[in-house]
């Protein structure tokens, strides 16, 4: 019987660059739950061999895709990581492809992701890096939309965005499909001096998929990143978001949101790395777990020695919607400089009884009061997203909640 490794090796053939990433992947080996950073993943029933079959699965999401495309300046459609179509155009914006696995900042791909087997596998098997480049001083008024479709059992998407000096753009990315698939996206964002990027990334894959995502942001002097990451889909949803602030005055704002239902696991990891002083990062992570789902949030704030007057904040709130759901919150600090402001807060608990009573005392029945509060929990996050994605998230959240509360009733 053909194994995943045999099939992958055959697909790579004699391509030396891909082979080096593949060798690095084999050397790193798949993680196990004895690795601290993977201890919450359901790896006991995970096998790459399960994803060899590459049968196409029809995706019936046309209406939702249309709503995401609404108001876009450019729509980039990717299928299983391959660039299929670029529609629309905008002066100063270029969409192209190149081999996956380039350097970012002062580190090579292998060096940066040497401990991340899935990111290495991505570079070995991704059809290509889809490169979106925004020229210096270009302001893209309407969002650039990336429609990501997982149609077969393997999707290795690799996206690189370069925002030029003093340029600004908004990017909306949304994942569709993913039935019984392994979806491994690697996304890299480089924002040059004075540049600004607003990014909303929404994962709404099938509940039978594995989603293992890695995002790295590099921010130069006075660059600004505002990022929203939403995860509703997948059986196992892992999103690691790193931001490296390498230029004075750089600022990173990250909002992450998830809603767990069924037996889903949402595994969210963040790393705010302040390499120089006078940089700002603010992270707000809010998630809710229903049914028998569980979540883990692990966030690290790292401040380099000499990165004076850094301001780094991290907040994580988890809502328990069922007595069988579980959430863990693990904030970490590694601060090697004294002259900084650093704060973290986290909470795990059910809906606030007094807030519920307040709504009930106005005439809102209990079920509706709870629904409003949970949707409100997410509204705080969707409030900062472009309307097209916020509407879809709101609707999906309502659908999941109706199902979760319906099942528990």
């Amino acid at each position: 019987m053909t194994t995943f490794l045999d099939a992958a090796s055959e697909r790579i053939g004699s391509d030396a660059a891909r082979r080096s990433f593949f060798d690095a992947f084999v050397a790193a080996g798949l993680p196990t739950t004895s690795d601290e950073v993977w201890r919450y993943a359901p790896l006991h029933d995970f096998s790459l061999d399960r994803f060899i079959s590459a049968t196409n699965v029809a995706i019936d999401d046309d209406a939702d895709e249309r709503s995401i495309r609404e108001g876009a300046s450019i729509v980039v459609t990717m299928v299983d990581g391959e660039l299929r179509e670029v529609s629309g155009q905008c002066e100063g914006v270029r969409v192209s492809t190149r081999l996956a696995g380039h350097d970012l900042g002062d580190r090579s791909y292998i060096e940066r992701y040497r401990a991340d087997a899935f990111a290495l596998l991505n570079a070995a098997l991704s059809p290509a890096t889809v490169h979106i480049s925004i020229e210096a001083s270009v302001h893209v008024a309407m969002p650039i939309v990336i429609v990501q479709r997982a149609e077969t059992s393997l999707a290795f998407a690799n996206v690189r965005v370069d925002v030029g000096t003093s340029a600004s753009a908004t990017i909306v990315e949304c994942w569709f499909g993913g039935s019984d698939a392994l979806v491994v996206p690697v996304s890299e964002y480089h924002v040059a001096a004075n540049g600004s990027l607003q990014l909303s990334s929404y994962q709404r894959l099938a509940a039978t998929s594995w989603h293992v995502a890695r995002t790295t942001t590099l921010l130069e002097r006075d660059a600004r990143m505002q990022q929203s990451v939403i995860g509703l889909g997948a059986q196992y949803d892992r999103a690691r978001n790193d931001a490296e602030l390498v230029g004075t005055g750089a600022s990173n704002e990250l909002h992450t949101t998830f809603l767990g239902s069924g037996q889903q696991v949402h595994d969210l990891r963040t790393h705010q790395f302040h390499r120089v002083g006078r940089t700002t990062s603010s992270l707000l992570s809010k998630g809710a777990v229903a049914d028998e789902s569980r979540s883990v949030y692990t966030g690290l704030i790292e401040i380099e020695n000499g990165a004076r007057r850094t301001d780094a904040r991290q907040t994580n709130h988890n809502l328990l919607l069922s007595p069988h759901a579980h959430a863990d919150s693990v904030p970490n600090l590694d601060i090697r400089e004294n002259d900084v402001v650093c704060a973290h807060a986290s909470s795990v608990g059910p809906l606030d009884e007094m807030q519920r009573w307040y709504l009930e005392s106005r005439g809102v029945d209990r079920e509706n009061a709870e629904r409003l509060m949970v949707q409100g929990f997410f509204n705080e996050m969707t409030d900062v997203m472009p309307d097209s994605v916020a509407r879809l998230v709101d609707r999906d959240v309502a659908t999941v909640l109706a199902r979760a509360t319906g099942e528990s009733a």
Partner: protein
Amino acid sequence: MSELVISGLRVRVGEKEILRGIDLTVPAGEVHVIMGPNGSGKSTLAHALTGRPGYDVIDGSVTLDGVELLELAPAERARHGLLLALQQPLEVPGVRPATMLVAAGADPATVEARIDEEARRVGLRPELLHRFLNVDLSGGERKRAEIVQMGVLRPRFVVLDEIDSGLDVDALGSVARRLQEATHEWGCGVLAITHFRRLLHELVPTAIHVVSAGRVVASGGPELAETLEEHGYEPFRQTT
């Protein structure tokens, strides 16, 4: 005519019995004011009427047009026509006033316009009510936002828990005017809890009730306020 009738109401909070047999009748369209020293049970009455968790009714009855409210869930009490305006309205992040009011029974087609209109009537900038419920509002703004909710929902009876504290003179005037108008517009019955007389300069009461140690110990017309002004609560004070 509608009537809110409270009889023999006894309420315990934790181990302590706070209300020890309250009897009170408020007919529709009238303004009744409850006054009393700190700790007399005024706010407990307001919260017990709406079924706040932790307020255990051990005896008595509260009926609105003959329907026993104490047997109803908090939302059903409100739907039946009893609304509480809180002393410290709660923040509910992520929930907009319009969404909440629609869920509470307001007409979705007109709710936004009604909120704006009611906001203007109590001197509140309407845009403050386009954000999330009570989030980032000052204490005084929250009080007025409660009156806006009342104006939109038009309950048969409104219970106001120290609506006057934290309001400046102008805001108090506009809130009192709105309440007075509510008594005419839809015959709203008002039960206002306060321990400041200044509310009575603006809101003309039909009756004043003095509560001490969990009971109504005196009832009378507006002239009762003058007695309180002159002698304080001492002549009415009872011990538990």
